């Protein structure tokens, strides 16, 4: 009696609590596809500085301690922590033993939205857990390792210091770019003090340009026989070291995406390589983490610009690394991605873009056998659902006039330059062009996330679907177990198999007296391959995607034996008699 009383009191309290909450929320009606009552309030129409990213990660971690782990995987060059959120249903197994998807963004510091897309993924998965059966299942089976920015130093520099849309791109190590023995002695100068590096133009009798009489933001080139009014002087800056060059030695320059340990090449083969693979601390932190987490089976890195889902190889010289079986899986996932993200095309780096040696995706796949894509975020298509190409000035001016109402452009303004005399400064701001305008950010984040969820979903999932017993007489039994991989990806990509990157999968029997053990290659015609040494634990090179592997033991005696599968990238499964 007493118990009931207490219980009913407790229920009453709960009802009261919830009714007050729901009263407060009555202002809103659920939109499909979006967390409705998020514990962590977040806006997906603006960008976060490093501090903003860390703040949001901490909030997510605090709100969902059973779904997330927050850790620093290492320090950047400027000693900032590189934070990772691990997302999985922690109550259903060790997240580091589940097949995992790794996601990062912002390797190029000016390619900022990858961090927001990664954060959106972390936020969405945690907020939707409990709401959607699919997400519950996903986080039960899989783990997502999410590092929003792997270039925190220069991300902040891009945002807080004067930059173009294309700078710094590298991290904050300052190198000697012109070979004069001085490092970083002549970078940009923010002459008009607006925190954007725009263009300098100057009136000149030999100038080839005029301002468009109908839109004076626009410079147009005159016909060869016509006289123009302006000449272009390049990005805002001065000759700071007196060598007659302007802006020739700023931050960097090196390319963090030429620093990875697969077929790495030095700087003279491709400008941008640093000293040796993982000579940049940010990349080393990622590589160390990946080396210690063989459960990562899929990976995604976010860049901008161009609306692309990219796979390797980065260079023609590495063509043979990608063989047909793996390309088939790459194609299947990415073609689905093209449907999910309108305006994005599935391309191959070396063929459709340019050559990259030692890129991140090359190492993830070539060096670790992980199926990996790079998405080049933002594309002209998102503005008017037409593809007007990269940096189309006409389109961008139109966007700024009709959609962002002048927010994207710094109007030309006169300035007295110490070396050039009277000039004008103006042009598009650093946060326009490559970066999504706020109103396009959330949709594209969601679509790209959906693609990574599909990718993560297709990492291997193993189960023991059948164990059959047959008596062989004289106390001997033949036990045949079938292990099924119910997803697209095999436990070992063909690159992995070629170099034996990960250990074989282990299928073992315990609590049984094993006389012999073998892999069944063809059950119908009894083609088997015996493993003489240590037959209790059969070493299986690979469990194919959407396929099965059969193993067999001859055991003596009786007992309640148990069969276990243990795969680095496929997770674990077991069966008991």
């Amino acid at each position, binding site marked *: 009696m007493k118990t009931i009383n207490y219980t009913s009191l407790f229920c009453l309290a709960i009802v009261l609590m919830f009714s007050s909450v729901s009263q407060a929320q009555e202002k809103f009606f659920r939109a499909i596809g979006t967390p409705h009552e998020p514990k962590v309030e977040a806006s997906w129409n603006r960008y976060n500085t490093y501090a903003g990213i860390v703040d949001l990660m901490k909030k997510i971690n605090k709100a969902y301690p059973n779904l997330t782990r927050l850790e620093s995987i290492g320090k950047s060059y400027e000693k900032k922590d590189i934070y990772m959120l691990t997302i999985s249903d922690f109550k259903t197994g060790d997240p580091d033993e589940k097949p995992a998807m790794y996601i990062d963004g912002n390797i190029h510091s000016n390619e900022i939205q990858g961090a927001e897309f990664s954060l959106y993924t972390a936020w969405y998965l945690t907020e939707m857990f409990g709401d959607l059966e699919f997400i519950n299942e996903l986080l039960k089976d899989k783990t997502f390792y999410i590092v929003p920015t792997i270039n925190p130093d220069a991300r902040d520099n891009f945002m807080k210091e004067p930059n173009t849309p294309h700078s710094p791109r590298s991290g904050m190590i300052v190198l000697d770019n012109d070979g004069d023995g001085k490092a970083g002695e002549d970078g940009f100068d923010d002459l008009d003090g607006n925190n954007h590096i725009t263009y300098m133009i100057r009136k000149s009798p030999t100038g080839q340009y005029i301002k468009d009489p109908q839109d004076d933001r626009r410079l147009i080139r005159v016909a060869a026989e016509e006289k123009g009014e302006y000449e272009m002087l390049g990005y805002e800056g001065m000759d700071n070291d007196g060598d007659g060059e302007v802006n020739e030695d700023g931050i960097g320059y090196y390319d963090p995406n030429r620093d990875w340990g697969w077929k790495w090449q030095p700087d003279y*083969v491709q400008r941008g390589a640093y000293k040796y693979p993982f000579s940049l601390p940010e990349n080393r932190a990622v590589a160390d983490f990946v080396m210690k987490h063989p459960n990562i089976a899929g990976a995604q890195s976010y860049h901008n610009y161009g609306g692309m889902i990219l796979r390797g190889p980065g260079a023609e010289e590495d063509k043979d690394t990608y063989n047909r079986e793996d390309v088939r899986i790459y194609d299947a996932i990415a073609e689905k991605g093209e449907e999910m993200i309108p305006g994005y095309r599935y391309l191959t780096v070396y063929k459709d873009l340019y050559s990259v040696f030692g890129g991140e995706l090359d190492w993830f796949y070539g060096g670790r056998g992980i199926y990996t894509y790079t998405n080049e975020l933002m594309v002209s298509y998102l503005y008017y659902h037409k593809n007007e190409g990269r940096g189309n000035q006409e389109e961008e001016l139109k966007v700024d006039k009709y959609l962002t109402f002048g927010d994207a452009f710094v109007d030309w303004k006169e300035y007295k330059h110490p070396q050039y005399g009277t000039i004008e400064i103006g042009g598009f701001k650093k946060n326009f062009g490559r970066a999504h305008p706020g109103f396009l950010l959330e949709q594209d984040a969601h679509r790209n996330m959906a693609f990574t969820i599909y990718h993560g979903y297709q990492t291997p999932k193993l189960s023991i679907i059948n164990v059959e017993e047959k008596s062989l007489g004289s106390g001997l039994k033949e036990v045949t177990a079938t292990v099924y991989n119910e997803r697209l990806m095999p436990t070992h990509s063909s690159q992995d198999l070629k170099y034996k990157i990960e*250990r074989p999968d282990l299928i073992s029997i315990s609590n049984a007296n094993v006389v012999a053990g073998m892999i069944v290659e063809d059950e119908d015609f009894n083609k088997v391959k015996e493993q003489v*040494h240590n037959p209790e634990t059969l070493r299986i090179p690979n469990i194919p995607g959407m396929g099965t592997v059969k193993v067999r033991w001859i055991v003596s005696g009786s007992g309640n034996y148990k069969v276990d599968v243990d795969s680095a990238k496929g997770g674990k499964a077991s069966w008991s008699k």
Partner: protein
Amino acid sequence: MKQITAILLLILVQSFAFSQEDYPDLKEISKRLKALDKNSNVDLSTLTKTEGGNDIQVLKIGKKDLDNKPAIAILGGAEGYHVLSVELALQFAERISTNEEALDKTTFYVFPNMSPEAYAQYHNKLKYERRGNASSLDHDRDGKLSEDPYEDLNNDGIITQIRVQSPLGKYAEHPEDKRVMIEVDTTSTNAARYKVYSEGIDNDKDGKFNEDLNEGIAFNNSFTYNFPAFEPLAGNYAVSQKESRALLDYLFQQWNIYAFVTFGPANNLSSPLKYDAQEAKKRIVSSPLEGDVTINKMISEVYNETISQKAFMQENMGTDGDFFQWAYFHFGRLSFSTPGWWVPEAKKDSTSTSETKIKDTKESNFLKWAKQENLEDVFVEWKEINHPDFENKTVEVGGIKPFVMSNPPFSKVDSIAIEHTNFILKLAQHQPKLEFHNLKVENLKGGLKRITVNLLNNANLPTHSELGQRSRWLRKIRIDLSAEKDNIIAGNKIELVSKMDALESKSLSWIVKGNGKLNLKAGAPHTGFAELNINL
């Protein structure tokens, strides 16, 4: 009398301490490095501690403005089993550290031992030719760590070979020296055939012997040029080890190095590398460039004039992931390598009775030579043992002892070290040398002055290797005139020159305003600097 005894005793002790009879162990090396560090021309520093807890050290040897003089880097211990290389590097350091004249012009970096753990195996209880460091590496990538190392089956403290009589074998005894195993071919008659393995047991019963050793990554397998990814002793990616990273981090900060001399298995000094136009034109440059091969040829001639030993079976022109090729292909410096010593060609054996012409193998030549030199203790006679993997079969342990084919008897080392020190000194004499000549100051109207001067590279080597010109890690020659920018009417205040050939000169001129003294400076750390004071 007592005093005399004490002095005698002291002399005796000292001579014991200083007359080494064998290659030094790590402790002795450390002692010699510390002794060197006492010299004011020498600065010993530690770059890192290896996974095995050994210091990786460098000696920076030179005088005054060390960082702005052209420098040569000398590296020993590229391979741990090549104990000679460490001694050569050490002796070079010891000899050069008091050579004031050489140090006036050149700075030397000596990395005495890059493979301390592998090196230590020479002195360990169990001796074998080791390459790997102390890190863990699953060499055969089967998911099991170092499950199949060597075993000393005959308990002699050294790892040699086993041979198993078997019709399935691919080896037979050498007709002239039955101790040596040679591969059988179709001309072989009905000689007994053997299987030959390194000394050990097939611990994991995979049919392979000693394929997953108790050692880690080999220094000389771990660099970025043609890195042999996933191969035994190489690891998952290039420059993965503390010592390789620490070395490169250090080298990338030493802008004055223009040449490397690696004491290692590769040899581009007895004869130069070959130029392959097609490979050189690839974007992943796979042949030394033409101009650099010319340099290699010239330096090779210097080497052969200085070193008394004649080349014999010196075919190693670099192997995948080695240091010597990295220094050229990925660091853009002139890079030379020599083992320092190799097994010489044995004199023809006049007593040979064999009618068929049997080619000498490396092993048979070695044994012949060893006999002619009266070297004992180089071979373990084949002796039958019981082997668990080959029950009821005749299994013997034996073979040439480790180390003896890569390292000469210690008594020969001093003369080798002296010759190689001389070679490096000659290499230093060819280093880039910038000089100003023919300074002229002409008075123009209105107080303007025209300055003209020639800059000469007074050396047999260019300032930049052909490949080095492409690298950002070699600085350009920078010419600075101290005049105020506004006072320079014509000419550059700062001018960058990407290369000057051997004996190339370049004329420079300025028109300047004003009087007084100006300073003109030209150079880069690896070429040294020329300076000139100009009175206007």
